[in-house]
């Protein structure tokens, strides 16, 4: 056991947080649990397919401007000449508009679809990042320091978890928005990006508590372990103990939690946009399109199916991947 080299992965190797399953798996020593899990994941064909799908969407989102350029369209340009006087598109998919155009406005479906992947992914990753950071720090502090700090943080965790999440998210969006400069005197672009940040804030606000509770639990059991006691005994500063000794042991729950929360955030973003409290024009997003397209589903099913397929495929792939990640770290769940 090496006390002096907290930066190495030695501690992780010997004392994985989810120690039991790894021991149970009787894998040869010398590999970190993370490595082991990754190896397992790599052999999982379903998981790899999901990785492929998620990567596909990430690439679409990253290269959205390029793809739209390739098609020769932009997501915001109105082509009212392509819809008839009743608002119905006059033609289906063609060489200029690969997936046809939107009813009423005549905006390009393909461009809107590829750009629509962006907010979903950005919101999900950003909210996961913030949620994870806050959750880990809060969990570490509560578990390690104990006493009043623990009591206060635990109480806040309980509090956040006992709020009706969806209801609050819906109510918070306009309020946070009005606190952040208000929705008055803004240009559409400013307004849309405000909503964007508000959404990330609201989702991470409700996302950190669950992780913090798990981390706290893990830390409670870890802090009584010899390597931590030893580090404390020889006077390693608290901050170092927290982040160099404990944190590496928490990789498993953090990775699991993050991989499970990604699809949840994609779902939440699109859901809130569908309800009309998420993203707003002119940012194209799948949830908004679904809300509009439900009125047209009979006359123009393609318009509805595009975002539906986008969200379903992305969320499904992410969720199955998250499940596989959890199984890889903790095979006990599969049995």
């Amino acid at each position: 056991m090496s006390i002096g080299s907290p930066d190495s992965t030695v501690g992780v190797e010997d004392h994985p947080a989810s120690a039991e399953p790894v021991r149970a798996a009787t894998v040869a020593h010398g590999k970190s649990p993370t490595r082991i899990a990754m190896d397992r994941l790599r052999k999982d064909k379903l998981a790899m397919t999901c990785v492929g799908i998620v990567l596909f969407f990430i690439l679409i989102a990253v290269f959205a401007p390029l793809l739209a350029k390739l098609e020769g369209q932009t997501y915001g340009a109105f082509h009212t000449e392509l819809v008839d006087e009743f608002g119905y598109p006059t033609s289906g998919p063609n060489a200029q508009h690969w997936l046809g155009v939107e009813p009423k406005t005549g905006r390009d479906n393909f461009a809107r679809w590829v750009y629509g992947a962006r907010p979903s992914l950005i919101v999900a990753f950003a909210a996961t990042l913030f949620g994870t950071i806050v959750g880990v720090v809060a969990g570490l502090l509560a578990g390690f320091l104990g006493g009043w700090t623990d009591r206060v943080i635990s109480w806040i965790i309980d509090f956040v978890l006992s709020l009706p999440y969806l209801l609050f998210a819906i109510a918070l969006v306009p309020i946070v928005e009005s606190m952040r400069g208000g929705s008055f005197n803004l240009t559409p672009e400013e307004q849309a990006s405000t909503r964007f940040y508000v959404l990330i804030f609201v989702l991470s606000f409700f996302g950190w508590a669950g992780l913090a509770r798990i981390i706290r639990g893990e830390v409670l059991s870890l802090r009584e372990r010899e390597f931590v006691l030893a580090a404390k005994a020889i006077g390693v500063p608290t901050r170092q103990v927290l982040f160099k000794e404990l944190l590496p042991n928490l990789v498993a729950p953090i990775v699991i939690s993050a991989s499970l929360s990604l699809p949840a955030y994609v779902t939440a973003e699109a859901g809130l946009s569908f309800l009309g409290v998420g993203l707003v024009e002119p940012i194209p997003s799948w949830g908004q399109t679904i809300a509009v397209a439900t009125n047209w589903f009979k006359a123009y099913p393609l318009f509805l199916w595009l975002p539906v397929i986008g969200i379903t495929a992305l969320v499904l792939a992410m969720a199955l991947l998250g499940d596989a990640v959890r199984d890889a770290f903790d095979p006990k769940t599969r049995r």
Partner: protein
Amino acid sequence: MLYFVARRLVSALSVVLVTLIATFTLFFVAPTDPAASICGERNCTLQRYNEIKSNLHLDRPKVQQFAEYTAGIFVGRDFETSGVVQHCGAPCLGYSFKNDRPVVDMLKSALPVTVSLVLGYAVLVLTIGVFIGSMAAKRRGTLGDRALMTSTLVLSSVPYYIVALMISLYFTILYPILPRSGYTALTDNPGKWFAGLLTPWLVLGIYFCTQYARFSRGSMVETLSEDFIRTARAKGLSDRVVTYKHALRAGLIPVVTIFGLDIAGSLAGAIFTEKIFDLPGLGNLVIDSLNNYDLPVIMGTVLVASAAIVVMNFLVDIGYSLIDPRVRLA
């Protein structure tokens, strides 16, 4: 035990209190202007605006406003609009000037809808979910188990509102094989009540029973490997009796726990169902109020929903500690 209950009670009450303060702060201290939205668009003179402000006591210090609001919950309060006093009896959660009704009245008319929805949902997920889960647990490892579990995993990974929306569009409108949804009060016409809620129930039940199937499978697997089951088997009890009498009873405890928390949460989570199936419940009330900036209604709904969750949490905790004394130490 008494100490444990007391401690839990204090913590639960503190959560409710802080929710109250937090929502109040958000809605009344945030730069929104209830008086302006009440005053309306036409005929809103400065005099009338100020009059509304003083009628609503919005010109008083925030702390006093908060005290009045809180007091209203316990003893009721009066609102004065243009010389007419509207009494808002306890529990008064504010007054919606948009609709000219106490918030509690609006909640009262929306609540039966949501409760009907949640009740049917509860019955369906518990029966179907637990049934599938325990079947799978018993046949653990077989092809059937794997197929069942994979399909529940896939279904529960698709966003709920997509499933609900597609079913509602395709099976109640385009190919109307399911009855069209709508709410009729149970007391008015039980048949209509049932028919109107059937589709949302089915959608909710099918979608969420997958989660319960997975919970109960996990819990049953755990229970089935415990010593007392082995003992029961050793006694020579039949497989059926072991599974459904001994194991299910023990295995259900964590499922019911989750269920208790879930029910409170689903009061608020019914938003999508209500929106998609157009049921005038709490969720639709919130969305409508949001569109009208009718803040007292949103605040009242959020408070009630939070309180419901806290109460359920509390009950689950107490119930749990009765079953499993170790919990009290935590």
